[in-house]
């Protein structure tokens, strides 16, 4: 763990949080004193709470906010679906637990964002539930970015994808916690604490795999190369996010690129790895234009729910 003394030497505003590498100091944004196991009753925001607020009209997203929440929710949902596959297949039991936990966190964020988004997506001003959105939308109606859809492949690829995601999500949620939209702010404030641990997990594995054996180093380099073409899409602004960022509800993705590059760059430098020089893929997920992978993910995820439409589980 970081030594307490490292705190006082911090010159930057936002570092790597509670990370064991000593690359940078922990700071206030991620709660570095938080416990992964401590239960804090009354403090947790559950999707059910948001659903209640949506149903009772206490929380009502604008159409723009709903579309934005859909993007963040779909990213997290698709990633959770990917990570869930590792449970019972991980390289060590500890990683069955760790990847399962990260997947669960992502699923929790997805449920919150989708529940909130649903508040403006029903017929005649009504609401759609998280399950209606997850199970009964078609592929082109999903808004996930391509990175989240990428296959697990081997452990190094999964770690490379998680490394990018967790540093991206941390910078995003840290800022979104200040959103003028109270519900987005509340979801992000809870999520950022969890994503802080995801950063620690993935950064440690990047260092370990890069510095372990020749084979693991080769695989880590390959994994980063495979996911890097999809990094660019995460930071693209469009008309929607620009409007929302101007009103203070959302975070313009382009505004977090610099911190992302700096912080991931520091870990890669410590691991003696190059930032992959890969041409960026055009993306398109935010407009419903997806990778070839998404159809299969949805087919599997939705099969049972669609077999019994209207059923309750």
């Amino acid at each position, binding site marked *: 763990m970081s030594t307490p003394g490292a705190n006082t030497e911090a010159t930057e505003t936002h570092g790597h949080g509670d990370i064991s590498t000593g690359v940078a100091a922990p700071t206030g944004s991620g709660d570095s004193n938080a416990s992964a196991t401590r239960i804090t009753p009354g403090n947790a925001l559950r*999707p059910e709470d948001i659903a209640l607020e949506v149903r009772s009209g206490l929380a009502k997203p604008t159409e723009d906010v709903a579309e934005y929440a859909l993007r963040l929710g779909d990213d997290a*949902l698709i990633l*959770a*679906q990917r990570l*869930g*596959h590792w*449970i*019972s*297949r*991980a*390289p*060590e*039991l*500890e*990683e*069955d*637990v760790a990847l*399962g*936990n990260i*997947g*669960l966190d992502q*699923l*929790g964020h*997805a*449920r919150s964002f*989708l529940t909130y988004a649903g508040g403006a997506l029903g017929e005649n001003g009504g609401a759609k539930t*998280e*399950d209606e959105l*997850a*199970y009964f939308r078609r592929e082109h109606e999903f808004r996930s970015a391509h990175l989240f859809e990428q296959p697990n492949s*081997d*452990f190094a690829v999964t770690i490379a994808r998680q490394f990018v995601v967790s540093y991206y999500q941390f910078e995003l949620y840290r800022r979104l916690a200040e959103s003028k939209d109270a519900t987005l702010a509340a979801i992000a404030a809870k999520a950022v604490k969890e994503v802080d641990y995801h950063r620690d997990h993935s950064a440690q594995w990047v*260092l*370990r*795999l890069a*510095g*372990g*054996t020749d*084979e*693991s180093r080769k*695989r880590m380099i390959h994994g980063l190369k495979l996911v890097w073409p999809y990094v660019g899409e995460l930071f693209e602004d469009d008309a929607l996010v620009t409007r929302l960022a101007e009103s203070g509800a959302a975070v313009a993705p382009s505004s977090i690129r610099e911190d992302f590059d700096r912080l991931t760059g520091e870990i890669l430098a410590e691991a003696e790895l190059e930032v992959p020089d890969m041409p960026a893929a055009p993306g398109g997920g935010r407009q419903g234009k997806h990778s070839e992978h998404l159809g299969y993910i949805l087919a*599997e*995820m939705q*099969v*049972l*729910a669609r077999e*019994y439409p209207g*059923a*309750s*589980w």
Partner: protein
Amino acid sequence: MAVQNLQSVPAELSPEELEAAAQRDADGQANFDRVMAEDSRIEPRDWMPADYRKSLLRQISQHAHSEIIGMQPEANWISRAPSLKRKAILMAKVQDEAGHGLYLYSAAETLGQSRDEMMDALIAGKARYSSIFNYPARTWADMGAIGWLVDGAAICNQVPLCRASYGPYGRAMVRVCKEESFHQRQGFEILLELANGTAEQKQMAQDAVNRWYAPALMMFGPPDDDSPNSRESMAWNIKRFSNDELRSRFVGMMVEQVRVLGLTLPDSEIRFNEDTKKWEHGPLDWNEFKEVLAGRGPCNAQRLERRREAHDDGAWVRESAAAYAAKQVNKQKEYAA
């Protein structure tokens, strides 16, 4: 570590050393006997009879293996769980099982075998795990039936183990049982929802209960007159109740709960015997039990292959982590020097 028995003492010891070792064994046995008589606990550094160690190691490692293999039938439905809430609960549950495996391997390690050795034995097909996990989880309702019946039977077996004479095992079981009781309730809730759903959902639930009922009853092990390990295990305060006793209690619990579900148990011979004050059930197919145990169940090969595949695919990761850790230690040494 104390000398376990005279057979393990190297031949080159002098007569005085041999005598001292024999004395230690005699003192250890006396202490062990006292602990058993007082129904107190043996801890890892205490002397224990070689057979006690061997029997416990077998039981705890089999239990750990069961948790790990038992992840598979439920992991089979994580990607297809029909609601996001159910998906979250199922992921948490299967993750708990990995956690149980970890505590139990740790408890077993205190008896002198490494997790790697135990894992190798599992993958080589030399170690056993609970036969129940060699049955397939065909439908979503199986998630309910596994939680309700399989975890329910496991709890009946495991609650008395919280008082097992070996400290690390007993303590691990306390935590495992707390989580298992959540698991059973979530299984019951899945079935309750299905039983109150559409006719097709209710049929799905009944079908799952029909398929898991007998295998769950057989989880308690062979009938008492055909259970060779039980007597010793009870004398050592590891096992507290006989297989048939636990099975009867379990049937009594299920018979009440199935009414709340609005489903039935596939056994017309269940009755409460007023004379013995015990629940009785119809005959079980012990031939099937032996067949599955011998490797001829529906999923034996599949389960073992999945574990082997995960282990082999992960080898380079574990090697990398070990190499990295060793390099870090060297760096620290250089820094200190």
